[in-house]
C-alpha cells in the first residue's frame, strides 16, 4: 500500500511539473504575441496603459469606441486625441483605464461615453477578463480583476488562465489588419454599412424603459472616475450617444444631470437628437452609429466642446 502512495505522489509531481512547464512556455509565447501586437484590442489597451500622452482621452464602452472619431476632435480642437473605448465593457474597465493612465499622464479633456442605463445596471466584472493578461504588469487593475471570482487572485498565477481563450484576438491582428480599427484611427473602431429596417413598418416609436433604482456600486465607480480626473485638472464631458430609437428619460439620465451640477462636468445628451434618431442611414445597428453617423456625432461634440472652451476663455478676466 505504501508503494501505491509513493507512486501516486510521484505521478502527481510529474504531472504538476509538466503543467507548470506548459504554463510558463505558453505564457511567454502569449506575452510576446501581446507585446508585439501590430494592432487590435490588445495593442490599443497596451497603448493607453503604456504610451498614450494625448490631450484628449475618450473612454467608455462600444458606443465610445465606435461613435467617437479622434481625428475629428484633433482637427476641430487642435489637440491630440486617443479613443480608449472598448466594446462589451462598462464602468470597471473605464476605472482601470483611469487608474493606470492617470498615474502616468493627465489629459486636458476627458470624453466619457456612457450608456443611458449605466448607473442602473449591475457591474459586470466577468467581462473584465479581457484585461487578465495585464494583471501583473499594471497593479492598479488588480482589485477589479480580483472581483471576477473569489479566488481570482490565486488563479492569476497561471499564465494559461490569464490568457484563457485569447488566441483569436491575440493572433488575429497578425493576419488581418484593422479589424478593431487601424492605428491611424487612434483607437476608433469604424463600423461600415448601415442597418436594414423595413421603412414601411411602424418603427418610429419611443422605447419605454422601466425605471430602475440606481446601483450604488456603479454610482460610486462613476463618481470616482469623475473625481480623479477633476483632481488631475482634466475638463470632463460626459456623452450619451443616440440610439436608433429614443427612450424615455431613464433614472441614469436623471441622476447624471444631478451629478453634472454637483461635480461641474458637462453632460451632452444626444439620446433625442433628431439628427440621428430614426435615421437608418446613420446607424450600423440599433445602438451604434456607422462611419457617417460617427463623423456627424463627433463633429457635434467637438463643436460643443469648442464653444464651451471658447466661452470659458472669454469669461476669464483679463
Amino acid at each position, binding site marked *: *500500500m505504501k508503494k*501505491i502512495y509513493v*507512486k*501516486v505522489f510521484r*505521478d502527481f509531481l*510529474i*504531472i*504538476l511539473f*509538466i*503543467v507548470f512547464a*506548459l*504554463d510558463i512556455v*505558453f505564457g511567454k509565447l502569449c506575452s510576446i504575441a501581446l507585446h508585439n501586437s501590430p494592432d487590435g484590442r490588445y495593442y490599443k489597451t497596451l497603448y493607453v496603459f503604456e504610451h498614450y500622452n494625448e490631450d484628449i482621452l475618450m473612454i467608455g464602452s462600444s458606443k465610445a469606441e465606435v461613435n467617437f472619431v479622434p481625428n475629428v476632435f484633433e482637427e476641430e480642437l487642435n489637440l491630440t486625441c486617443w479613443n480608449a473605448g472598448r466594446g*462589451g465593457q462598462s464602468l470597471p474597465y473605464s476605472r482601470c483605464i483611469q487608474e493606470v493612465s492617470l498615474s502616468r499622464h493627465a489629459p486636458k479633456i476627458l470624453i466619457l461615453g456612457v450608456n443611458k442605463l449605466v448607473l442602473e445596471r449591475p457591474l459586470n466584472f*466577468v467581462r473584465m*477578463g479581457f484585461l487578465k493578461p495585464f494583471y501583473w504588469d499594471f497593479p492598479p487593475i488588480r482589485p477589479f480583476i480580483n472581483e*471576477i*471570482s473569489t479566488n481570482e487572485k490565486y*488563479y492569476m498565477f*497561471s499564465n*494559461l*488562465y490569464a*490568457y*484563457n*481563450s*485569447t488566441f*483569436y*484576438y491575440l493572433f488575429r491582428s497578425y493576419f488581418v489588419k484593422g479589424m478593431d480599427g487601424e492605428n491611424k484611427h487612434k483607437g476608433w473602431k469604424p463600423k461600415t454599412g448601415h442597418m436594414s429596417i423595413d421603412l414601411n413598418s411602424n418603427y418610429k416609436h419611443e422605447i419605454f424603459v422601466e425605471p430602475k433604482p440606481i446601483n450604488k456600486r456603479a454610482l460610486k465607480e462613476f463618481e470616482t472616475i469623475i473625481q480623479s480626473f477633476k483632481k488631475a485638472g482634466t475638463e470632463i464631458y460626459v456623452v450619451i450617444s443616440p440610439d436608433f430609437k429614443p427612450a424615455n428619460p431613464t433614472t441614469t439620465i436623471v441622476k447624471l444631470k444631478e451629478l453634472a451640477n454637483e461635480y461641474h462636468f458637462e453632460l451632452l445628451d444626444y439620446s433625442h437628437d433628431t439628427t440621428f434618431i430614426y435615421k437608418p442611414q446613420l446607424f450600423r445597428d440599433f445602438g451604434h452609429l456607422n462611419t457617417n453617423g460617427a463623423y456627424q456625432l463627433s463633429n457635434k461634440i467637438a463643436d460643443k466642446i469648442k464653444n464651451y472652451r471658447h466661452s470659458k476663455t472669454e469669461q476669464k478676466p483679463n
Partner: protein
Amino acid sequence: MCWKPEYVFLILSSTIVDYIAAIKIGREKSQLKKRIYLYFSLVFNLSLLFFFKYFNLFNDSIYTLLNSFNIFYDKPEFHLLLPVGISFYTFQTLSYTIDVFRGNKKPERHFGKFAVFVSFFPQLVAGPIERSSRLLPALKQKVNFSYENLSEGLKKMLWGYFMKLVVADRLAIYVDAVYNNIEHHSSLTIIAASSFFLFQIYCDFAGYSYIAIGAAKVLGIDLMENFRRPNFAASIGELWKRWHISLSTWFRDYVYIPLGGNRVSKPRFYLNLFLTFLISGLWHGANWTFVLWGALHGFYMIVEVFIKKNLKIKFLKKYNFMILGILFVFVLKVISYFLFRANSVDDSFFIFKRVFYDWTPGFYHGDGGNFINSLLAIMILTLIEIKQEFFPGKLLLLHNKCYWVRSTSFATMIAIIIYLGVFDGGQFIYFQF
C-alpha cells in the same frame, strides 16, 4: 433547483419508505399484500416528485385553461424550489422496489448500505440512474485503494471536465444569447444555436456522468456507462441506445415493457412507444416544451419502426449509408431541440415558424472570439470521438503504454482545460431535472 438542508428529509423519507416497503414485500407471501406495499412506495415517491417538480406546472396550466373559458380558479400559490437530484434518486429507489416485487432482487437489510445506494454522492444529482442489482453488491464489496482505479477514475473525470468546461459552457454563451432573445434572430442563427445546443447538452450531461463515473471509480465502484458517443447514432433507435443509457433502459424496463412492449397488437405497440417517450419528456422538466419534445421523439421512433417494418430499405444497408443516417439523425435532433431548449411553448412555435415558414436572412455570431472557440471546442470533441468510435485501441494518449506519453497527455489535457475552459459558466443543465 436548489439544495436546502430541510430537503434532506425528502431523500431520507424516500429511503425509509422504500427500505421498509422492500423488506415487507420480501417477507409477504400474499401477492395482494406485496402489491399494496409496492403501490404505497410508488404513490409516496411519485407524489413527492409530482408535488415538488410538477405541481406548479399543472396548477398554472389548469389556471390558464379555466381562465380561457372565463372560469374563476382560486389558484393556490406554492413557492416551491426543485430539490436537487429528486428525479434521479426517485427513479433509482423506484426501480429497487419494483425489482424486489418482481423477485429480481432480494431486499437489502442493512439500512446504511441501502441509504448509500439511494444517496451515493457522485451520481446523486444527475445520474447515472443505477440499478440496485449493480450498485448494492458493489457497495458491499471490500474495496482497497488501487492505483489503477485512481488512474482510470481521474482520466474519466478529466474527460468529463473537458466536456463540461471547454465544450458545454463555451457553447452555452452563444446558445443563451440567441435563445434568450429568440424573436430578434434570423432563421440561420436559430439553426446554428440549436446545433450548438446539441453539443452543449450532450457535453454538459455526459460531462457530469463522466465526472460521476470517474469519482466512483476512484472509490473502487463501477457505475454504468451513460453515454456512448450519441452523435454517431445512425438511427433514432440507436440514438436511444447511446444517449442517457441509464434512463433509456429504465424506461424500457419499468414503463415500456410493463405496458406490453412489442408483444401486443401493432397499434398498441406504437402507442406504447409513444407513451414511453411522452413520459420520458415529462421526466425531463416541468415545462410543456419537454412533453412536446418527448412526443416528437415518440413520433420519430414510430415512423422509424414503421419504415423498417414496412419498407424495403435493405439497399440502404447494402450501401452502408451510415454517414447519411448520422446526418439525418443530427438534423432530427436539432429540430427536436427547437422544443427542448425553447424557454416556452410560444417560443418553440415561433422557432418552427421562423425556420420552416418565415425564413429570415442574416446571421449573428456574437463575439467573434467566443464563436471561434465554440467551433474549435466542437472540432476537438468530434476528432476525439471519431478516434474513440472508429479507431479504438489506436492512437492512445491517456492510455498509452509509455508512461511519459500518458503523463504528458494528462498534463496537456489539464492545460487545454485551463486555457480553453469557461470558468464562470452555469451549473449542469441536468441538475434541474
